[in-house]
């Protein structure tokens, strides 16, 4: 495999899985021209006049959809770790003796460990999406037949629109659907929130199959997925384990060290002048990017300030802001707990968004760059503010990119991370895998101090007179290495064997992930 050095100084292949690749050219430096991919012309006369698209089972649907070797099949991660639909889908494909599938999920979860046997026996050729947990380990050990492709949620939309990924069959698991294929995620025992991640697939795939465990009479409203894009509807007993689809309640971390970071985030946002009437921010679902919300809320109340909108990852903590009138809207990409699902179902100010509205590179703008502050995590951040979210310091793939890359475009991007975990430095001299270029990352907040990107002179000036522990990133990194016992060894990898590539939001290749020895 031929590797070239890209604009970020990382070595990347120019061809992957038989497709030509463009090396990263710099932030906002690549602008493809021409036309977007176009779906085939359909006519309503080919579909049942009574609107009933129900077929007997998934196998029948796949057969009718013309499943064959080498196709691209897409799935979505609304059901998170409770998903059984994807596993059953590939059991069925295996049973139909079809091989070499390109699996195109919006994300994968540990529950998909089930698919390793299909990666081994050639049912699945490779994954383009995310390779989490066991799938990440499998990929990192060089066992996948093809090369993995990691994309952000926005990048996934871009790849579909660019025609880089043509979806043959999209399988959309829907907690509620009618026989026409109108579907949503807010009703039924498997309710998960919005189905935004499946939007592009429903519009661009050749064939679209909706799988539901909650068939309702026409019309199924709201139709987050429009039945007009759907070919077949399959009814099943269950989409998966509801307790793993959304958590009952989301609890904030009790770790005093994480809470300290969360407190610093709120204090920084206040000191930097971000917390003012009509402001906006993006929160996450786990750990610190959730824990800062109560601290921020206290400040908003004390200052008498209200947000115009907040972006989630919604949880009961964002819902409380909405209920208490501290924000006008929740613009929700993904719903993480029952309270979030309930709110999206009942509150018209709790709006489902999709990667198209939020993140898409080929839109006429997107929401990500309108947000005043985004609070995100990372597995590693280096002294040039570059960050990694997909591999751990030992070189193993462990997480997907999610919306992380897209959120870096916010007006103030804050990475909130512990400076080390056990004996694993998080603030390092150079990231193992580059997922986010430092020029888009403004602030690093750790329990050992806050580092502001020297490019952001405005932020440095704004917080100059605060009592916040502002330090240089190098100083924090040096202290971390002292605590951990020196610079860590670099992971042992085979630089000749690329197991996955990391795409930038524009479709160019930002970095390579290598086989771990």
């Amino acid at each position, binding site marked *: 495999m031929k590797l070239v050095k890209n604009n970020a100084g990382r070595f990347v292949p120019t061809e992957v899985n038989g497709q030509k690749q463009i090396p990263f050219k710099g932030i906002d430096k690549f602008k493809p021209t021409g036309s977007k991919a176009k779906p085939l012309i359909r006519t309503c006369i080919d579909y049942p006049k009574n609107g009933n698209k129900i077929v007997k089972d998934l196998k029948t649907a796949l057969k009718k959809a013309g499943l064959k070797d080498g196709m691209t099949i897409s799935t979505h991660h609304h059901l998170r770790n409770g998903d059984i639909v994807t596993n059953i889908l590939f059991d069925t494909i295996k049973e139909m003796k079809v091989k070499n599938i390109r699996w195109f999920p919006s994300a994968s979860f540990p529950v998909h460990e089930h698919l390793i046997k299909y990666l081994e026996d050639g049912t699945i050729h490779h994954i383009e999406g995310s390779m989490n947990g066991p799938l990440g380990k499998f990929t990192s050990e060089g066992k996948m037949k093809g090369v993995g492709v990691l994309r952000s949620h926005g990048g996934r939309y871009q790849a579909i629109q660019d025609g880089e990924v043509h979806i043959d069959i999209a399988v959309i698991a829907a907690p509620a659907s009618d026989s026409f294929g109108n579907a949503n995620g807010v009703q039924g025992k498997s309710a998960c929130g919005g189905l935004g991640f499946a939007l592009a697939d429903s519009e661009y795939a050749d064939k679209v199959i909706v799988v539901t465990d909650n068939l309702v009479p026409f019309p199924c409203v709201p139709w987050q997925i429009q039945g007009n894009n759907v070919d077949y509807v399959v009814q099943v007993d269950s989409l998966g384990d509801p307790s793993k689809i959304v958590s009952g309640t989301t609890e904030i971390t009790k770790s*005093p*060290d994480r*809470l*300290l970071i969360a407190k610093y985030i709120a204090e920084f946002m206040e000191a930097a002048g971000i917390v003012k009437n009509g402001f906006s921010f993006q929160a996450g679902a786990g750990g610190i990017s959730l824990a800062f919300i109560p601290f921020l809320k206290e400040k908003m109340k004390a200052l008498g300030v209200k947000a115009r909108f907040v972006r989630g990852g919604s949880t009961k903590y964002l819902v409380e802001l909405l209920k208490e009138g501290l924000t006008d809207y929740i613009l929700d990409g993904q719903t993480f707990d029952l309270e979030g699902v309930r709110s999206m179902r009942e509150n018209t100010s709790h709006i489902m968004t999709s990667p198209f509205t939020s993140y898409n590179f080929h839109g006429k703008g997107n929401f990500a760059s309108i947000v005043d502050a985004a609070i995100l995590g990372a597995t590693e951040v280096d002294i040039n503010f570059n960050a990694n979210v997909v591999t751990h*310091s*030992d*070189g193993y793939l462990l997480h997907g990119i999610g919306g992380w890359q897209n959120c870096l475009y916010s007006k103030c991007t804050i990475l909130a991370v512990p400076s080390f*975990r*056990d*004996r*694993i*430095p998080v603030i390092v001299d150079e990231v193992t895998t580059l997922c986010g270029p430092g020029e888009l990352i403004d602030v690093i907040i750790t*329990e*050992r101090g806050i580092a502001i990107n020297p490019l952001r002179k405005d932020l440095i000036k704004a917080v100059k007179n605060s*009592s916040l522990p502002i330090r240089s990133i190098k100083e924090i990194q040096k*202290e971390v290495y002292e*605590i*951990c*016992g*020196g610079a*860590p*060894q670099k*992971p*042992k990898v085979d630089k000749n064997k690329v197991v996955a590539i990391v795409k930038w939001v524009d479709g160019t290749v930002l970095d390579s992930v290598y086989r771990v020895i």
Partner: protein
Amino acid sequence: MKAKIKIGKAGKHGDKVRSDCHVVLELTGSGGIKTKIQSKVSALYGQSIKNLILKMCDFFEIKNAKITLEDNGALPFTLAARFEAAYKQINPDDSKEFLLPMNKKNLNASSKDQLRRSRLYLPGNEPKFFPNAGLHKPDGIILDLEDSVAPSEKNAARFLVRNALRSVNFYDAERMVRINQLPLGLEDLRFVIPHNVNVILIPKCESSDTIKQVEEEINIIKAEKNLSDEIYLMPIIESALGIVKAYEIASSSDKICALTIGLEDYTADIGVERTNEGKESLFARSTIINAAKAAGIQAIDSVFSDVEDLEGLKISTLEAKALGFEGKGCIHPRQINVVHEAFKPTEKEIEKAKKIVLAFQEAEKKGLGVVSLGSKMIDAPVVKRAQRILSLVNNK
């Protein structure tokens, strides 16, 4: 003839262990050093871990041994402490100590009337709590060798606490160690006195004799090691008899910086339940305050044990302040801010203190021996208290 022990074990293992390790050291007759290392961080620090072990074998002149290490991300100070604890089980009489370099950030000395609003207890055998303890900005941290350490772990904890005092940056917190009850506590001193400890907490004090023994042992060690920084003492009174002897204890040494009380043991001793309101210990706490003030030292309150109840902690701390206490023990970082807030002087107190200090400065400038504010004469202790209040304002 007594069979000689050949195997030493120290540390923790299991799924839930974080930032710690377990070492099994077996001295063998031949075959050189054989290591079996299983570490969560082997990809990052595998070589560093092995090097440390070999260095320690060399230091203790171990030529032939089987060493099994199960590591869950222990920092070097922990690894070294576990290895040495295992080794000293086999060779307790070896007086050599494997000391890591002293962290230069930990060289600062303390003063007798240091601010001691909060002191955070850290169980002496739980290394995972050490590195970040100082970040929560307690006035002091206490590495505890006493009640939070199981009897079987006492020895291992000593090595860990010693190494922590040398290696872990506790930022600007005063470094305290709670030793065991005597006579065990006297042995503990050897492990901490030479390593920049600022204050020794002496549990279950019932007489001035206890203080004398500790002071004497400290002086011996200081002379041996040629140490000059002051090491202060904080006796903890935890019994009815101790309360009766409070003043005797408080005034038994000029190294005593503060007197404090342990209410769990005290209430047990007088045979009552401990309550949040604390009526049952009012006499004892008032006695502590009175004895401390009479001896010219600080009075410090017990811990508040319900870590979830921050409102209760606030009420309890405000009450402690009103009684005359100047500090409170903390068993969780989240308690620190609440305690500091409660001890923060009120606006009224600050205004008054400013006037007093100003009057004092004026009088000094004019060379007057007597300070007066309006028609009132102001005594030296009042000035001192006012200065203290202002120092609290500046000390967030």
